[in-house]
């Protein structure tokens, strides 16, 4: 299995374990790399001269390294995975040793030290943190993952052979594990370097040090410089980049409006495309959410940066992206209700909580229908045409050269007079206009105003914020972040209020729909009624907070600071 004893003695490419490495091993395991094929029997023989060794098991595992789409675990220096026996009849266990792997093991390790944070039997691959019943582990995962799902980032086969270093009482003093890895799931199977891992046992530090010393001095094995996960990711050219979908390209002042817009729109298209597969497979709700945000931002640019697209072309894309937003809305709404469902249960007194269960079933049933509809729409010719036309827009630098687009052939220069102007000039003008609109709409809202007026202000704030965020490169960081912080607080209030308005209306509609579909008895309808009452009360409270939030936004922002930031004093011609 691990052939060629001679390789253990090959010291050509040897490195030694540094003193620091040896000292830092307190309770952490130390991994050595077998640069060439080596024979575990050789280790066995060599160590047998010094210690009593016992082979406990020889097993083949399938290992799934898990992380979220945006690498949240990795960013926290945490390695997470699920091991499951690959083929049960390969399992060889001696003397009833403690082996959990027969049912699968979920583990979390510190990426830097390799120390085990959690490890427990788990018979299926977890999808969400809520699948984990281990309390403290679940808390940790909740904090890191939130509502994001686990996805396998690397799948590998691990052949593991375990040896115990024993004393006369047959007590384990240290554990040696020889592992061989093959990365699967790719066209060509990739093998990584074999590793020999030495685990200390608390209270037997001396033996651990002796074993390490023996391995480094006699076997001359180099320590692993990289974690196994990092090595595997490098082997499959995978880079854990949580900011992969953040706009990293800076927008220089020299760009024309068309050039800057093109960069932004291309980026948003990338975000949409990156999230499409995840939303189709319903891996977690964030894929659809991020997709929708990218669509909304695209629409916002189309609407706000005026006179850069020919009229007919603009009409076409505006209409089609509006359609795209619309077809994703029902699934997203149902996602939201399902995400909020546990919260809804807690809103109700305990004796009513179970009465709400049919509502969850109703939501799940409708979610399946709406999600299927959404996938159908994403498979439609209309969608493919939109994406392909949109991609063509960015195929070359100069929009006017997009002559293969029929709609562009009828372009007149008057329609696109902003395209060649400096982006900063056009954008600043637009931001100023939107700012004035936010103020105007905000001041007009009184306690008696219709709910719709707050919704309108919310939409304006969103457009305003998108523009500031898109073009933040043009303005001083400090001012922008202060402004956005206050704007965010105002938006939170407006967002909460709108959510509650929609929920109250929608829950009433759902109750009626459930009654018609025969899915709800009187108790469920009553429970939903109580829920609507609670939400209505909260809606009133949120609405009452608006005045104060708006006041804070106006006060902290101050017109002078704003004018300075966005150069209200016009310098353009």
């Amino acid at each position, binding site marked *: 299995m691990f052939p060629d004893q001679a390789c253990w003695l090959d010291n050509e490419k040897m490195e030694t374990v540094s003193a620091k490495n040896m000292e830092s091993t307190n309770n952490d395991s130390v991994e050595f790399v077998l640069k060439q094929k080596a024979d575990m029997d050789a280790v066995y023989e060599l160590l047998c001269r010094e210690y009593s060794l016992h082979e406990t098991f020889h097993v083949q595992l399938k290992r799934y390294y898990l992380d979220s789409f945006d690498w949240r675990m990795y960013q926290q220096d945490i390695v997470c995975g699920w091991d499951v026996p690959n083929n049960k009849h390969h399992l060889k266990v001696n003397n*009833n*040793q*403690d082996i*959990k792997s027969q049912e699968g093991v979920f583990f979390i390790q510190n990426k830097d030290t390799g120390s*085990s944070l*959690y*490890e*427990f*039997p788990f018979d299926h691959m977890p999808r969400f943190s809520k699948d984990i019943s*281990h309390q*403290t*582990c679940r808390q940790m995962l909740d904090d890191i993952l939130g509502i994001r799902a686990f996805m396998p980032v690397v799948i590998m086969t691990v052949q593991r052979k375990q040896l*115990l270093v024993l004393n006369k*009482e*047959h*007590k*384990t003093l240290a554990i040696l594990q020889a592992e061989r890895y093959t990365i699967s799931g790719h066209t060509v199977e990739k093998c990584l370097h074999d590793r020999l891992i030495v685990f*200390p*046992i*608390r*209270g*037997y530090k001396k033996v651990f040090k002796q074993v390490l010393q023996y391995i480094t001095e006699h076997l001359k094995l180099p320590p692993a410089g990289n974690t196994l996960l990092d090595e595997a990711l490098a082997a499959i050219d995978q880079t854990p980049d949580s900011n992969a979908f953040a706009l990293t390209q800076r927008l220089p002042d020299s760009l024309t409006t068309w050039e800057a817009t093109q960069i932004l729109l291309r980026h948003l298209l990338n975000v949409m495309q990156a999230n499409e597969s995840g939303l189709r497979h319903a891996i977690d709700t964030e894929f659809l959410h991020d997709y929708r945000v990218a669509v909304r931002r695209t629409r916002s640019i189309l609407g706000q940066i005026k006179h850069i697209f020919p009229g007919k072309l603009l009409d076409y894309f505006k209409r089609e992206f509006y359609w795209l937003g619309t077809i994703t809305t029902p699934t997203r709404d149902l996602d939201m209700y399902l995400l909020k469902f546990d919260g809804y249960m807690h809103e109700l007194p305990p004796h009513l909580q179970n009465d709400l269960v049919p509502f969850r079933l109703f939501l799940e049933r409708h979610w399946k229908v709406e999600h299927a509809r959404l996938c159908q729409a994403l498979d439609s010719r209309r969608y493919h045409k939109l994406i392909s036309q949109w991609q063509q827009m960015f195929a070359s630098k100069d929009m006017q050269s997009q002559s293969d687009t029929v709609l562009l052939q009828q372009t007149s220069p008057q329609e696109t007079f902003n395209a060649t102007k400096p982006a900063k000039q056009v954008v600043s003008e637009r931001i100023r206009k939107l700012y004035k609109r936010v103020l105007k709409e905000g001041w007009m809202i009184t306690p008696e105003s219709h709910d719709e007026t707050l919704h309108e202000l919310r939409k304006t704030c969103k457009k305003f914020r998108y523009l500031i965020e898109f073009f933040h490169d043009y303005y001083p960081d400090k001012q922008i972040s202060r402004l956005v912080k206050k704007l965010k607080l105002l938006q939170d209030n407006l967002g909460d209020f709108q959510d509650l308005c929609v929920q109250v209306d929608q829950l009433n509609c759902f109750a009626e729909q459930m009654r018609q579909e025969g899915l709800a008895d009187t108790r469920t309808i009553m429970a939903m009624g109580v829920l609507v009452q609670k939400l209505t009360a909260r809606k009133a409270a949120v609405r009452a907070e608006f005045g104060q939030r708006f006041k804070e936004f106006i006060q902290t922002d101050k017109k002078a600071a704003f004018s300075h930031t966005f150069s209200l004093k016009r310098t353009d011609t």
Partner: protein
Amino acid sequence: MKIVACYNVKGGIGKTATTVNLAYLAAYEGARTLVWDLDPQGAASFYFRIKPKVKKGGKGLLSGKKALDDVIKGTDYKYLDLIPSDFSYRNLDLALDDFKKSATRLRKILKPLNKEYDYIFLDCPPSISLVSENTLIAADAIIAPTIPTTLSLRTLDQILDFCKKMGIAHDKILTFFSMVDSRKKLHKQIIENPPQNVRVLKSCIPYASDIELMGVHRQPVCVFAKNSRAGKAYQALWDEFKRSY
């Protein structure tokens, strides 16, 4: 961190077997677990193949966390550690008596282990003493294994009285029937009519040769005979215990 004391005045009723198996099951599920073998007979240490010896003896351990850290030994099982027994524990009462607030000394020195362990199991010696008082005060849960016989039930009453006198919350005491022989009529009768003055877990541990074989294998039953009657009984007991707390 939860401290669980396995205690009874009587000896030979399965305290150590209970401690060792429950602690093993806790660690198996991923909980960081420590067993303190407080019994100078050192049966728990023997089961884990660890020498019943601690540096500076029992008195030295009572000085604080550092002293405990130095003697903790890893067992053969992941996340399961042990503070071994020591023959000097027979004089632990005297050592405790030297400290101010002697009845709460154990609780005080265990407190700093809070971040390191999810469970600490105390395998108590069979006596009523200052050590017992310390363990009962330190514990969040007290498990008193009881053989379903008249005398054992009488002992259980004595324990309850003792706890009451010390002001230990009654709801942290629970019992279960141990060494149950289903062929015995008295055992059956008592199990069917359990005492009403204390929480009694439904899971019973049978009188089984597998439990005696722990001494031969020097392993928890749940390792070498996981699917045996005894192995399943300990699993059921552990599951029920977790639900109860």
